[in-house]
């Protein structure tokens, strides 16, 4: 079933969710979170299967969906106790989806305006025939902070090598390495907190790859991830074969 999903052009995870909602004619105010989460994770898996680099945002959203799913279960356990006062954990997601949908529509409107006006070019006068004497009072009138940044950047770029104060380090990381890394922690202790796992990771790229590695290990049933109530942190537990 899931294989029928096209690799459509999605601007991001919110866009992808919106796609599921439109496709299945889901009421945005009453999202079947279990189904949507499953569809979403299947899509992510497919991306990994196709060896597509998974953007960190997609992983963040997966976390959000799982968090909502978990929270939806909690009230049922504590049933009877102030059930009405518990806010629907889906609210934040609904708000995000509605907001995103709104801007998506405006983006479409802007596109229409663009095609109407992008072919209109402004007057470009030549002042060479006018004598001029500079008037100082309005000197900054057409300069933006971006122009200042840009000018500084240009000046820096022209400076000789050794004077250039910064350079970008290229980091390399891959999922297999991070799987090894996670296993090395699990060998020391069968249960590892996510926060412990990522404490030493300084780069966002490596962090994202680590999370993808975790998802991958979950998918292959090497590990189980236990969610704490607050979801500030979660525990990674190694699974026994056949567990």
């Amino acid at each position, binding site marked *: 079933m899931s294989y029928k999903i096209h690799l459509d052009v999605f601007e991001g995870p919110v866009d992808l969710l919106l796609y599921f909602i439109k496709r299945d004619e889901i009421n945005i105010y009453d999202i079947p979170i279990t189904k949507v989460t499953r569809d979403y994770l299947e899509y992510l898996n497919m991306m990994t299967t196709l060896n597509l680099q998974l953007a960190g945002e997609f992983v963040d959203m997966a976390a959000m969906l799982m968090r909502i799913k978990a929270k939806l279960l909690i009230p049922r356990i504590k049933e009877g106790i102030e059930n009405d006062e518990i806010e629907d954990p889906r609210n934040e997601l609904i708000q*995000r989806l509605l907001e995103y949908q*709104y801007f998506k529509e*405006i*983006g479409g409107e802007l596109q229409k305006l663009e095609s109407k006006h992008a072919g209109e070019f402004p007057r470009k006068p030549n*002042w060479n025939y006018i004598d001029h004497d500079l008037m100082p009072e309005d000197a900054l009138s057409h300069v*933006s902070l971006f122009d200042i940044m840009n000018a500084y950047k240009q000046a820096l770029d022209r400076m000789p090598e050794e004077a250039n104060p910064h350079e970008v380090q290229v980091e390399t990381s891959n999922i297999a390495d991070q799987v090894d890394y996670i296993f090395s922690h699990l060998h020391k202790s069968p249960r590892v907190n996510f926060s412990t796992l990522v404490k030493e990771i300084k780069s966002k790229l490596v962090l994202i790859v680590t999370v993808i590695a975790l998802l991958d290990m979950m998918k292959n049933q090497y590990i189980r991830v236990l969610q704490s109530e607050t979801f500030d942190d979660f525990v990674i537990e190694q699974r026994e074969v056949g567990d």
Partner: protein
Amino acid sequence: MANNNISIIDMQLVEALLIASDVPLTPERLKECIDDGHRVDLAETVEELNERYKVNQHAFYIMPVGKGFQIVTVNKYENVVRNYINRNVRARLTYAALETLAVIAYKQPISKPEIERVRGVNCSAVLSTLLERELITVSGRSDAPGRPLLYVTTEEFLRYFGLATPADLPRTRELDELFSHGESQPQTLEELREEQEQGQGQGQDQEKEQG
């Protein structure tokens, strides 16, 4: 033509200024150029000129841009003009860019993290494209943690989309209510600046001024 109140001199004056400049002509700028006492209603004069341009089948018209007006060529000759001024690189905006612009236009001044929260994706590439094309600019810093840069749309944004003011942005009314609680109206850089200058800013600015 329709409006006989507008003298030919006023029309010529406005036309001359529009032809000679590439910054929008505002009522204030016009006023600076006119000798005391004489009054020219810019909007009405522009309307009259546009009517004449239409009747006489000119290849340009006067477009409202922000608080001012600017001459632009008509759509019809897009390809020829594009060829001529070598702007073929200026292709249409991507969907991601349009969507990001929509977010900035409605929520300005807005920081990158806020934009990314709405769009759900990293926006660095799109922001740099929009900055390069002068559709947005940096207006200062947010007080939020990390003091991220704030972005606003520019006059070029209005011109590019043929909007007279940010209030002319397309809106979807039902969904508009989503943001009705205390969300600020779209502001132009100019307005933000005026606000800033009137010292509505917090203690820091004043402190600095005295320092």
